[in-house]
């Protein structure tokens, strides 16, 4: 099979070591780190409320197609699926009014990389942040997805991607560690200061 440039990119960004959460062997450890960061963000004034109680998980053996059972961990930040972007549903609210939620599926690494046997590995995720009109962003929302390995998108070479405010538009993305993703949502997805934007525009 011919390996196109995007397939090569896909292979690089979803290499095993980007999917494995080194040293994270159980959902409780991951949940604790995410809750800690959220609590700290509230204290720092980045979040309008302490949403750490919205991070929860289930860790179960799930029957897979073909009769096999596999341990799967679901870590959820929020409660309901919010495809209609309804702000009345539970979410994390930043102090600037942007709001987000997320969900992550993981499984134990199969031991292909011996040193990571037992560490959790990302199967998929979705992190979506919405920007209210008052923030003046030209993009109303942004979503980072990691699709299931067998999803159609992987065949189209974009398993890890982001949607810039349009479900039909996607661009390749790095695979985000949950702590990295949360940090992006909390801190770094801010508009550039006016001064910096002007200097960038002049380039």
């Amino acid at each position, binding site marked *: 099979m011919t390996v196109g440039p995007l397939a090569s990119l896909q292979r690089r960004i979803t290499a095993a070591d980007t999917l494995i959460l080194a040293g994270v062997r159980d959902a409780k450890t991951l949940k604790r780190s995410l809750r*800690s960061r959220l*609590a700290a963000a509230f204290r720092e004034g980045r979040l309008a409320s302490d949403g750490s109680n919205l991070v929860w998980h289930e860790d*179960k053996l799930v029957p897979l*197609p073909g009769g096999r059972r596999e341990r799967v961990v*679901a870590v959820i930040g929020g409660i309901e699926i919010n495809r209609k972007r309804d702000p009345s549903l539970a979410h994390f609210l930043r102090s600037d009014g942007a709001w987000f939620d997320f*969900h992550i599926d993981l499984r134990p690494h199969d031991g292909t990389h011996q040193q990571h046997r037992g560490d959790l590995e990302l199967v998929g995720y979705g992190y979506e942040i919405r920007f209210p009109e008052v923030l003046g962003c030209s993009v109303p929302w942004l979503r980072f997805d990691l*699709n299931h390995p067998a999803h159609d998108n992987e065949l189209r070479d974009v398993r890890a991607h982001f949607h810039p405010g349009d479900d039909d538009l996607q661009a390749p993305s790095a695979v985000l560690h949950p702590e990295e993703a949360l940090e992006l949502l909390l801190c770094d997805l801010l508009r550039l200061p006016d001064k910096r934007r002007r200097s960038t525009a002049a380039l």
Partner: protein
Amino acid sequence: MLIPSVSLRLLESTGGPAWYLITVPEGTEHGVAAELHAEIVAQGGSACVWPGHELGSAPVTIMVIAGDAVSKLPAYLDTHRSTLANWGVLAFVIEHDAAGRFLHDAPHVASFVGGRVIATTAEDDDAPPEYVARRLNSLREAYGMTDAQAREAFESGRHADDIYFLEWMVLLEGARSGG
């Protein structure tokens, strides 16, 4: 208040004497103290837990007041409050009902604690049943399927590549096993 938030509150108080009364369900005193210790370390801080560690050996001292200590410690703490003040942040972990007696028997400690009384529980591994129920409802609505239809579709290979279906199966297993 969840353990991460309690821990953060304690860490933010380091640098000066501050006493907290952390009230917990009966029988969870030692578990909560261990969780607080782990959480503080996870947040980059340092804490000691009594009994076990030397009192005052870290910026945050967590004292478990349980068993005999509930009746024996208040008078001692009240008398030695000046020494204890040098230990920086001091968090007494005590059962909810015993907390009232403790403050009554140690009036000076009570004045040191002031309004810094926080109720918490040990971290629960189980997902909140209400959250699971609401999430499952939203999955059913989003896909227009019952749980049985979703399970059948998933196990037969349809939607096996959809991470929402994987999550759906995990939540169903959780609901079936009671959390």
